[in-house]
């Protein structure tokens, strides 16, 4: 029997064994670490690749801006001299897809021609003095306020500017509103 620690050589052998065992364990551990790290790296790279692809797809699907430059030039539409519009009148502007309204108090509004219900084009019915949507019979008054549902909100407005008596409409800025307010009307 060899008593532990009793003999120097035995101790050395034992120490060696422990060392190699330790080394093996350590190397196994490091392999494990390496593999784990590489695995994580792969997953990480995969996620990065997926995100990149999603980004590319999103870029393709994003509303195209092809006409943006041309539109900035044509965005502000000059409607004409304010004196040209009679009170209580509606003038359609095909190019800007809006109606210029001159209320009976002389205030101006620019209304989108798109119905707020499902997007049909709403014609002005002069005989009834109302906008009547042909699709689902929503009715709006001259200020665009809802007279009859299903339309959930008044017709959207565009920004009206009056410079030196000339009425201009910025068709780039469409504003949604929930009710008619006098602040939406522009006066000379």
């Amino acid at each position, binding site marked *: 029997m060899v008593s532990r620690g009793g003999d120097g050589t035995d101790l050395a052998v034992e120490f060696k064994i422990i060392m190699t065992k330790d080394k093996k364990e350590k190397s196994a551990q490091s392999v494990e670490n390496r593999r784990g790290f590489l695995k994580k790296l792969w997953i990480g790279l995969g996620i990065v690749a997926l995100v990149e692809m999603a980004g590319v797809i999103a870029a393709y699907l994003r509303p195209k801006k092809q006409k943006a430059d041309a539109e900035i030039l044509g965005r502000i539409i000059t409607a004409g001299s304010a004196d040209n519009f009679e009170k209580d009148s509606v003038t359609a502007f095909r190019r800007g897809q809006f109606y210029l309204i001159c209320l009976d108090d002389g205030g101006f509004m620019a209304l989108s021609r798109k119905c707020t219900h499902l997007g049909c084009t709403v*014609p002005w019915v002069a005989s009834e003095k109302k906008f009547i949507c*042909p699709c689902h019979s929503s009715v709006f008054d001259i200020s665009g306020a809802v007279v009859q549902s299903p339309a959930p909100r008044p017709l959207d407005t565009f920004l009206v500017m009056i410079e030196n008596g000339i009425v201009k409409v910025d068709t780039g800025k469409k504003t949604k509103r929930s009710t008619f307010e006098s602040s939406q009307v522009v006066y000379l």
Partner: protein
Amino acid sequence: MKPAHPNSKNRGFLYHLHPPLVSQNVLKFTHTWGLGGSALVLVLMQIVTGVLLLFVYSPTPEAAYPSIIALQQDVLFGKLIRNLHHWGGNFLVFIVFFHMLRVFFTGAYNNIRKVNWWIGLGLFLCVLISNFTGYLLPLDQLSYWAITICTGMFEYIPLIGTVIQKIIIGGTEIGKATLSNFFAIHVALVPMCLAILMPFHFWQIRKAKGVICPVPPPNSPDDAGVQKVKSVPHLVSREAVMALVIIAILFLLSVLFNAPLADKANPGLSPNPTKAPWYFSGLQELLQHFHPLIAVFVIPFFTVLSLICLPYLKFEKAAGGLWFLSKKGRRMGFVSAAIALVIAPVLIVLDEYIINISVLLPGVPAVVADGVIPVVLLMFFMMGFYKIMKNKFVASREEGVQAVFIFLLVCFVVLTITGVWFRGAGMALTWPWNLK
């Protein structure tokens, strides 16, 4: 190569999709009505006619409509090919819908068939998207405004609605970008998805050991039904007949009726009335009666959700392969359908002319008056209906659920028919013979 079956020679792969042997009772026509096979035939027809149309069609706003006109006037059989594609697409929606009903009513959606139910739902979605995107392509008044109001519906989906709408339209107005999007989805994305999902769908049936059929009680004297016969010729001959019948019907439709084509799209002039394609006209009809949030979001969302969750319904008894679960289930189905057939039209007419909750309750927001209140009332009605049906027939839970499902289904069909045939100018109720 090792043959997959003693009788086969070199058809190993095909046997992953089409069985070499088939149970005899599955061959009975009224067991499946040949609907899945018909759908496949129609998809193949769509691919053939679609590729032909691709050679003529130009997907730009300026050239699209003239190219359809040129197709109809100058190309040999151009009108016929377009008719085939048009009626084929509509027919496909119809067939796929009935196929889904068949699968539902024979209980082929749980356990091993769970995944295939979901694949089937995916395929149904593909068919709908394909039809919807194809609808815009001629760019006539009909398609332009139908797509306008359908994409307009997205605006009512909370939070993400406007974003989705912008992505689909590619801007704020239907135009060049919309046409590119729809064209890409129609001719590339959807066909690609179909090409992947369809073989998967067929393979899953093989995995489930064939089309669902009732398991006969043990030691039953008549076990002829479960006896397997060779697919060639027993199954294949039947499939061939069904395919020829479907193709014949499609040609007949296409020769007799022209695909509609209105004037060139005019963004300044909405036609009166403007209707969604017929498969969405039930949805549009819902919009006439409920607040948009309910009609466009809540109801469709919960419908799709319950279809997806259907395989998780806990079953009291394993019902597989029997139509309508049982004889009792069938009887309950008839009663539910009859009740719905009376109640739905009555409610539509009442809501159109008499009931107006928002007038009765002034000051209550529209979402509550036209949305929450009617929905809650209808839910209470459905719960009562379920209880009464279940007690009256001493039925199991599945039979009760099925009765409710049939009730809702018939209501949806009534809504769709109302939207297509009973809505005239200004979407007011009218008789079919007064249309146009």
